[in-house]
């Protein structure tokens, strides 16, 4: 059962040994029994479990500790969760790629099983009985033959004196004995959230803290030419302005530079900011205009590109002169628009740097802040608050660096508060993308040759200014292309970045899956076939697909299982009453499916398009197979939320630039789905399996735009090849 994760277990299970520089001792470290970095048990029975991944609504702060608690046989009511600071001893804390459960399920189980074995051994010694006769109950060790029992608290001190077990000695519970894994659970922070006690980034307040609002260069790479701050300094509460140096390329996670207004409170900082007059030197990115760039990108997508996967002979098949179908799709830049805009607090005192950040990646913050301060990273302590959404934006620690830079200059704690306008205008945007698809069709309308090509400025440009080709954006479902087609080629066209680019929930699948799953629907209608039946035919019979495209080998442990893919599509369709349910006037159903983050997901979207062209989404049925389900109730919640997120992308998500500056600024010109625009009801069906758990944060997002678009076609006969829908008349 222990796979990849087991290799690094040794590191986690030698408390005190691997820690290079302990920055903050947690209650788990200080507990009487501290068998590994994730756990501490006090003599009163309190169990401290470390949440080392960030919580932004993803649920891992609840789910991972429950996995540990399960193997420990701990009473969940006696568990206290402690949020970790950034510290390499925990392994990766980079909370992205829907990877928390996938990467740490086995490690958490082993952490729990290891501690439980030590408690059993401690009891066996005390009672002078063989450890094999001892077993655990809820928070206790029992010896059935003599009817003795001892609590975990009572055993904590004795257990702490025992050696950490070898991993081959660990015994794991059978699935049938799981207490928490696979059982519905509420979020650990539920009550705190509902009562306003939960602490997010902006809720951190320190003694002597000042507030900063930063005027940043509107064009990426811009520099301050001159700044007039006299009027700003007259605003009550404004203390001073501070110049922040521009970055040295690549921009990576460095601050954009600009002028910070320092004040006694957030409002004064905002007001002062309105009064400063900065003249910018914009640089070459001022030539970036979205209208023009779109034309160039579409042109690139029509030209041969870098071949990343090639099977059979696509060109020969196209040259035969049979039926050919081609289509182009386009998705603009998207902004994350996390409910909580970026915010960070820093306190830089000589060599000790402390930051409080709603970050998805505290280790990265440590490193980036350390670099900016010219200090070793061990001098930086990064506390992680709750995140008011993340969506990938908070993987980038630029705002934490801003706070640290200012705190160092001012010699006092600083909170940098981003306004919503800052958030929308200075994001790490999802790349704009053009996708070109071409198929040669047999008499039944099934492709005999398939060419898919996408062009987008790569996210890697953030770290490598010369990058023009996609990297891992091409991995996963784009390169897998799990079709039963003999001739298949996948290409990538080059494109230059002119704004900061980054990951956004479901990342490249947002444009790739929109294009491919729309195209499949188009092909089905072209052939006069049912889209579901056509989709299943395209995938072919249930089987394991062993793909090995050059440069992109599949990840071990997660074989591409066409049977599971078919099952979610069939389940979503069946639950939605596909082909059976009577739909009202102006209603239509559309389907889309994919494997993403090793999770199989399919959604059937029902739309209603009124005579006036208004769009409503009465219902979505989503089936998801994420392998072993840790918290099924929360998987449902994630997929409900994914449906709304996907709806926002489809309906209104569009970021554009004029002369290098972003045109949008707040929810009035970057609208996101409100209760009236969101799906009225999303039904989620969780297919449990014994496969290793996979991710649930992202996969459900990117099936929504194509399923929605396909439903609009079913309802109106109108085909949408370019998002957002707000650009189209639907009636």
């Amino acid at each position, binding site marked *: 059962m222990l796979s990849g994760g087991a290799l690094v277990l040794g590191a986690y299970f030698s408390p005190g040994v691997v820690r290079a520089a302990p920055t903050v001792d*947690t*209650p788990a470290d200080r507990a009487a029994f501290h068998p590994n970095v994730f756990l501490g048990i006090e003599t009163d029975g309190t169990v401290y479990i470390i949440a080392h991944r960030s919580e932004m*609504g*993803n*649920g891992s702060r609840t789910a991972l500790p429950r996995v540990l608690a399960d193997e420990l046989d701990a009473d969940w009511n006696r568990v*206290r969760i*402690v*949020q970790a*600071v950034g510290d390499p001893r925990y392994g990766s804390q980079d909370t992205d790629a829907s990877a928390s459960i996938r990467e740490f399920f086995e490690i958490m189980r082993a952490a729990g099983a290891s501690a439980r074995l030590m408690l059993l051994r401690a009891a066996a010694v005390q009672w002078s009985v063989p450890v094999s006769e001892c077993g655990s109950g809820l928070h206790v060790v029992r010896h059935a033959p003599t009817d003795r029992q001892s609590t975990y608290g009572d055993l904590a001190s004795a257990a702490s004196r025992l050696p950490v077990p070898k991993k081959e000695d660990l015994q794991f519970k059978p699935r049938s004995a799981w207490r928490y894994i696979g059982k519905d659970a*509420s*979020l650990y*922070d*539920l*009550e705190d*959230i*509902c*009562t*306003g*006690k939960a*602490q*997010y980034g*902006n*809720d951190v*307040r*320190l*003694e002597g*803290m000042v507030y900063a609002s930063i005027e940043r260069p509107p064009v990426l790479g811009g520099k301050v030419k001159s700044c007039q701050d006299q009027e700003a300094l007259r605003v*009550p*509460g404004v203390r001073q302005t501070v110049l922040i140096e521009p970055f040295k390329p690549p921009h990576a996670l460095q601050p954009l530079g600009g002028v910070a207004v320092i004040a*006694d*409170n*957030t*409002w*004064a900082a905002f007001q002062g900011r309105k009064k400063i007059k900065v003249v910018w030197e914009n640089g070459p990115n001022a030539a970036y205009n979205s209208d023009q760039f779109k034309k160039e990108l579409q042109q690139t997508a029509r030209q041969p590109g870098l071949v990343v996967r090639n099977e059979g002979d696509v060109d020969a098949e196209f040259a035969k002169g049979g039926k050919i179908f081609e289509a182009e799709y386009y998705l603009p830049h998207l902004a994350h628009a996390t*409910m*909580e805009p970026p915010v960070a607090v820093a306190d830089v005192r000589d060599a000790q740097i*402390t930051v409080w950040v709603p970050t998805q990646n505290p280790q990265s913050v440590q490193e980036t802040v350390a670099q900016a301060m010219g200090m070793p990273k061990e001098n930086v302590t990064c*506390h992680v*608050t*709750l995140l*008011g*959404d993340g969506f990938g934006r908070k993987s980038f620690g630029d705002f934490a660096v801003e706070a640290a830079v200012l705190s160092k200059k001012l010699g006092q704690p600083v909170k940098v508060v981003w*306004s919503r306008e800052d958030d929308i205008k200075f994001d790490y945007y999802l790349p704009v993308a053009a996708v070109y698809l071409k198929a040669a069709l047999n008499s039944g309308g099934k492709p005999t040759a398939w060419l898919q090509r996408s062009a987008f400025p790569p996210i890697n440009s953030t770290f490598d200014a010369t990058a023009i080709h996609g990297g891992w954006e091409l991995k996963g479902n784009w390169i897998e292309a799990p079709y039963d087609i003999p001739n298949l080629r996948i290409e990538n066209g080059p494109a230059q970045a002119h704004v900061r680019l980054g990951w956004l929930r479901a990342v490249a699948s947002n444009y790739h899956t929109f294009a491919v799953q729309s195209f499949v629907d188009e092909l089905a209608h072209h052939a006069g076939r049912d889209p579901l039946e056509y989709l299943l035919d395209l995938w072919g019979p249930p089987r394991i697909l062993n793909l090995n495209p050059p440069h992109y080998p599949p990840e071990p442990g997660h074989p591409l299982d066409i049977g599971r893919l078919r099952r979610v599509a069939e389940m979503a369709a069946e639950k939605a009453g596909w082909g059976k349910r009577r739909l009202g006037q102006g209603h239509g159903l559309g389907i889309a499916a994919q494997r993403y983050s090793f999770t199989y997901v399919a959604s059937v979207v029902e739309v209603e398009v009124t005579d006036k062209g208004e769009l409503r989404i009465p219902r979505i049925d989503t089936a998801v197979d994420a392998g072993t389900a840790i918290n099924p*109730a929360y998987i449902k*919640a*994630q997929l*409900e*939320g*994914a*449906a*709304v*997120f996907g709806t926002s992308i489809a309906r209104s998500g569009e970021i554009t630039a004029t002369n290098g500056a972003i045109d949008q600024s*707040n929810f009035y010109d970057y609208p*996101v*789905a*409100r*209760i*009236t625009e969101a*799906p*009225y009801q999303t039904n989620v069906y969780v297919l449990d399996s014994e496969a290793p758990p996979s991710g649930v944060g992202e996969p459900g997002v990117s099936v929504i735009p194509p399923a929605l678009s396909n439903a609009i076609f079913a309802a109106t006969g109108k085909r949408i090849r370019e998002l957002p829908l707000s650009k189209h008349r639907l009636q």
Partner: protein
Amino acid sequence: MADWAIAHSWGIRLLKGGSALVRAEGGDLMIQVKVNGVERSFHGDREMPLLWYLRDVLGLTGTKFACGMALCGACTVHRDGEAIRSCVVPVRDVAGAEITTIEGIAEKGLHPVQKAWMEFNVPQCGYCQAGQIMQAIALLRSKARPSDQDIDELMSGNICRCGTYQRIRAAIKAAAKGAS
């Protein structure tokens, strides 16, 4: 269960509210306002939105900042029982009023709407939920048994980026049922 465990590890004392972070020279007249039942006097910039008075001056951080333009509802509080967007209401407009925030909404224990929120596991990241709850409580005061249309109308000013809308709808209906 309620303690946010990170607090244990914070080496620096956190301000618990009441700090005089606002300089007095900006304001001339003192403003009296009752917040969660406590009489307060405000001496600062009278144009400061209530949101920042609550958060930065009083330390009541349950009310959230998200858009600054009354577009998203995250900052919703009650003025004399009615929902307002505290990010655009200057302190001068609440002189003499009674302000209630998420911290003060329950007279004892949890408000029935908070209970409904927990029963339906509404929150994901949770950042907007204080505003959603405050808006929902105000909604139920004006519509004891709200229809879907009422909910659409009165909750559409509150954005949730996690997409918890269907649970918000269900929780409001359940709270309405429980109250009648």
